[in-house]
């Protein structure tokens, strides 16, 4: 059996080898340049499609990471997974108590608790993903420096985890529906289409945030503030139609909704879930179209930021 070993010193290479006795090569340190030739620098290029293919090939890792975090976070708690149910429930009770009596927010024929809860679920998915996904890279620096699977697995596994929690959060919604005797309209079948927009938008922001936080920890605080403001800046307790006819300062009866959903596609998502499932109206495709296009832009931008920065993730300790 031959044990292969060959030290490659290319012909014409600058490296001087002094002494060569039975395969032993001693290199003169003075012969090594201070910097590599400029044309040999490594360029990190990852095309979107191969990267997504690689991701799907390694999806088990994503599931394993999500599973690890779910198991770990509920192992210490007495109520365990029950907490995934309790926290959205408490939120809806609070919102109903506070805003349920505000006349201007009322929608005829729809119990406010259901109205608010749908908004909350859609928001909690987004906010939860951003909060835990944004921190996922720095929380896993240890693993990051020792393994080599696609880095997107970390933030995306957090989105997967939030999907589970949101699904559990549907149980209080079912109870509410039964309690109020409310039957969702047949147009609710459109909902999966809206959720795809939310998913793409969320993924873009989560990827960008996860990558940027590695380099700038202050963004953790910024993110917390954004999430707090976003709860009220997103049509959760108020309907999107409030923006349909704005008269303020230089504005006279302007429909701000297209601009708003371009900035925050969640607005179109939440509003259309309510329109279809609660009111039985058809989706507002013009707004959804804008939301979808911008969600994709957010995603591409977030993904590019992530890929651009991933080269240095392991260097930062």
């Amino acid at each position, binding site marked *: 059996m031959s044990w292969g070993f060959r030290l490659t010193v290319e012909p014409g290479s600058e490296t001087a080898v002094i002494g060569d006795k*039975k*395969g032993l*090569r001693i290199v003169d340190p003075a012969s090594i340049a*201070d910097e590599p030739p400029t044309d*040999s620098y*490594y360029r990190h290029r990852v095309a979107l499609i191969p990267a997504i293919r690689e991701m799907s090939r390694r999806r088990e890792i994503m599931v394993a990471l999500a599973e*690890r975090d779910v198991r770990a976070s509920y192992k210490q708690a007495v109520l365990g997974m029950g907490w995934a149910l309790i926290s959205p429930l408490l939120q809806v009770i609070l919102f109903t108590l506070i805003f349920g009596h505000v006349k201007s927010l009322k929608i005829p024929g729809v119990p406010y608790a259901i109205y608010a809860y749908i908004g909350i679920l859609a928001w909690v998915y987004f906010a939860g993903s951003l909060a835990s996904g944004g921190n996922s890279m720095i929380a896993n620096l240890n693993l990051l420096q*020792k*393994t080599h699977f696609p880095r997107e697995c970390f933030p995306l596994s957090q989105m997967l985890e939030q999907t589970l929690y949101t699904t559990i959060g549907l149980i209080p919604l079912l109870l509410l529906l039964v309690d109020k005797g409310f039957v969702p309209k047949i147009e609710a079948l459109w909902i999966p289409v809206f959720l795809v927009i939310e998913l793409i938008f969320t993924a873009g922001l989560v990827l960008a945030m996860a990558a940027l936080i590695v380099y700038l920890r202050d963004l953790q605080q910024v993110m917390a503030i954004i999430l707090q403001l976003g709860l009220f800046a997103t049509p959760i307790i108020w309907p999107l139609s409030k923006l349909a006819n704005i008269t303020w300062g230089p504005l006279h009866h302007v429909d701000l909704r297209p601009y708003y959903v371009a900035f925050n596609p969640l607005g179109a998502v939440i509003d259309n879930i309510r329109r279809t499932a609660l009111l039985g109206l058809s989706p507002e495709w013009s707004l959804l179209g804008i939301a979808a296009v911008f969600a994709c832009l957010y995603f591409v931008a977030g993904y590019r930021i992530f890929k651009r920065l991933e080269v240095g993730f392991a*260097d930062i300790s």
Partner: protein
Amino acid sequence: MPTSADGTIIVEHVWKRFRADQAKPRLNDQLARVGQRLRGKEREWRWVLKDINLEVEPGGTMALIGVNGSGKSTLLKVISRAMYHTAGRCETFGRVGALLEVRGGIHPLLSGRENIYMFGTVLGLTRRQINERFDTIVDFAEVGDAIDRQVKYYSSGMQVRLGFSIASHLEADILLVDEILAVGDANFQQKCLRRISEVVANGTTLLFVSHDLAAVEAMCDNAMWLTDAMVRASGPTRDVLAQYRGAIEEQAVMVSSATSALRVLKVEVTGPDDGIAQSGENAQLHLVLSAPEAGAARFFVGVSQGTAMPIFVTRYYSKFPAGDFEIRCQIRNLPIPKGRYYVWLAVSGPEKQPANQQWKPIGSFDVFGPTAVEPPKGVMILSPVYVDATWELS
């Protein structure tokens, strides 16, 4: 289906740099950095790998040696793709398994069982492959019934064993091992080495980082010695180690003679007729020391190969005068084979006081004679003593 190229490592002119300014990922640091660049100041870099070339063919074994901070671990991380290199070409073929600080992948809140599935998946195994190997992994880790207990209640030894066990059952084409032998007890270290040799015997390529030179010699055919981010020497393990030991001990000797209270003026080991020392012959150790004042002390003199513990130690008690004085020691039938050896000295007070001088090498000497017998692969040379034996088959 593994192709013939699986298991190859190719590293060509690889360079890696880190930021030299050590800026923290905080807003004010980042702003300061932006400010500096606006003022036209070039970003400063610190090169941690410079023009590294290495190629290991399938089934080959290679060690990376060098002092701390010479770039060994960074090179391993670059090869494992956990880190990206800055320039050059770095490629591996086949599945890469990395044993880099194995406790890192273990989650303290999960049970041993959950950790095996989690860490195994992260390292690239499918659930079915883990199921197949589960019992073997548990057996090797010797955790027994504790497998369903949370890992935070494990002893640190158990945690390391679990991590190593998972990572070493990957059946990778390339195995990267970084300093895992620094943890765990002697028993476990031996077990790890055995496991690694098993893996290597199955045709896996091995790249091994360790400060344990005996282990390096036992595991690897070839070695590469890194200093200050550069390759200093590479080739057959034995030759590279000889170079490395030589350089390390030259440094140690220089340090010791400068800081001693009792100064060593001369160290000499001679053989018959004041010639070179020879295996199996009488040898004479000749020490000239200088003391600031008269006293009494116990002198411990040892002889070692490499920087490890001495092969043998002798002791001498004596009064000594102020100024220069001479000590001679006769060693009968010098029991060491051909090679370069080091003389160690420690001096302690006449009573059972702590030694007032550290145990360190003070000089070196060569021995002539038969070469050491090379043990079979995978066996560590722990006591390189030459034994004059006559064999007979009847």
